[in-house]
């Protein structure tokens, strides 16, 4: 029977990072997935790590820490994950949005983040193809807004981990988790590759984390939330920054608060414009979020709504070809914070999941924090808001 210091379940942006960071600490680690590396949410999402789509506080702290790590790993790793420090523009359609964006910028500036407002003129200089009638935007420089190729991040962490002795088991069915009958601590995992003995399991299975939790008797309140994007044919570089409409910030949360002048279709699908140019010369055009269970089929009405909204901000898209749509599910937690934590009830069972749309952004820092938790070191900053116990408090 094989024995590991830690077994990481889920080979997406979170699991591969956790596996890499634990391996780097000298642990003997197994990385398990029911499919391929990056087969789930991490290959059905968009590609950015930003501080400017976060609430001030722990969200932004984690975002900045992760961006700094991406920069470092882009230099260190042999595997190219297409790191591109491109900066970000949150585009404001109207004056009231400018006012709200400025309020947000001021709150982030107070914490030392270099966000600033740009007016219509500067916006049009920064993005020559953008609609000319917009009020302005909120600019985040490259130090706080980078893009990476999400599935290549997973491959990079995996390949770098393998150099440090990481064992990878893909297309692996996980049948059971065995606990010590006396103290409920983790003892082993039964898989289609046999039983793996370990005292530590890290559940990084994202939207599937509740299934793994069930095997250890740990209920995990994560739901799948669908997101959808469109891809263009290859075009010349007509977009310089990551672009989003300021309303997108709100759509990440419960709904778009600003009453926008949009069609009923755009409203119905909660569509918010976002656009970026990839290293492969395609445009990613988004996006919409909704609750559809695990159904990740493309919705034609949503494609229409995304196209309509995108052309409002980028009129030249009208004659550019869309070659594909794609959709995936993000692991949604009702308080919009991931779970990065041990579990008091089951010693040796850890959770790093529930990052919703921030999984790519938070991937490096989540791996680092988890390695600090397992080493019983003090984490780089206070992560008590990410504790699993927030869901069990009051139930004991």
């Amino acid at each position, binding site marked *: 029977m094989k024995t590991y210091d830690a077994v990481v379940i889920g080979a997406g942006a979170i699991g591969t990072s956790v596996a890499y960071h634990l391996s780097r600490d000298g642990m003997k680690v197994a990385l398990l997935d029911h499919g*391929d*590396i*990056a*087969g789930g949410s991490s*290959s059905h999402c968009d590609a950015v790590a930003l501080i400017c789509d976060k609430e001030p506080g722990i969200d932004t702290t984690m975002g900045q820490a992760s961006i700094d790590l991406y920069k470092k790993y882009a230099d260190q790793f042999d595997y190219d994950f297409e790191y591109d420090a491109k900066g970000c523009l949150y585009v404001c359609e109207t004056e009231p949005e400018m006012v709200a964006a400025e309020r947000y910028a001021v709150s982030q500036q107070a914490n030392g983040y270099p966000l600033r407002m740009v007016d219509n003129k500067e916006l049009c200089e920064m993005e020559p193809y953008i609609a000319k009638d917009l009020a302005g935007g909120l600019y985040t420089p490259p130090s706080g807004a980078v893009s990476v190729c999400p*599935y290549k991040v997973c*491959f990079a962490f995996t*390949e770098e981990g393998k150099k440090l002795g990481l064992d*990878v088991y*893909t*297309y692996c069915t996980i049948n059971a988790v065995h606990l010590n009958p006396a103290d409920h601590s983790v003892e082993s995992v039964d898989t289609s590759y046999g039983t793996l003995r370990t005292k530590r399991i890290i559940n990084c299975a994202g939207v599937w984390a509740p299934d793994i939790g069930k095997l250890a008797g740990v209920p995990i309140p994560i739901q799948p939330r669908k997101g959808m994007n*469109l891809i*263009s*044919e*290859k075009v010349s570089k007509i977009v310089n920054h990551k672009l989003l409409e300021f309303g997108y910030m709100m759509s990440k949360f419960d709904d778009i608060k600003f009453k926008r002048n949009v069609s009923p279709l755009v409203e119905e699908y909660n569509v918010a414009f976002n656009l970026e140019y990839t290293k*492969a010369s395609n445009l990613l*055009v988004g996006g919409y979020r909704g609750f559809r269970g695990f159904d990740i089929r*493309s919705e*034609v*009405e949503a*494609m*229409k709504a995304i*196209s*309509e909204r*995108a*052309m409002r901000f980028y009129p030249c*898209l*009208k*004659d*550019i*070809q*869309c*070659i*594909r*749509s*794609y959709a995936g599910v993000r692991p949604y937690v009702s308080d919009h914070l991931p779970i990065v934590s041990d579990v008091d009830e089951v010693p040796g069972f850890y959770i790093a999941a529930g990052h919703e749309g921030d999984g790519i952004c938070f991937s490096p820092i989540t791996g680092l924090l988890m390695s600090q938790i397992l080493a019983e070191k003090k984490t780089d900053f206070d992560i008590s808001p990410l504790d699993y116990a927030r869901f069990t408090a009051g139930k004991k």
Partner: protein
Amino acid sequence: MDNFSDDMIVCRCEEVTVADIKRAVKEGARDIVGVKRRVRAGMGLCQGRICEKLVQQILCAELGLKPDQVGSASARPPVRPVSFGELAEGVVE
């Protein structure tokens, strides 16, 4: 398969060769989607219409699998390229 040289282009849209696909298999790809994600075969303008069957053959030969075991790319609209303008204005039937 014997006449597939390593430098033969398989995916014309993304210029992916036989050697690239073999490398993807070495890195752990076991199906069409796994190859696509690792080396971009099938990600271009034609969305794998030309190359998918070739990628399937190479995968089967490399891994000793049958065609139905290496799957196919997920079917996604649009069926063929359509402009964002047409998409936005089109009638959904």
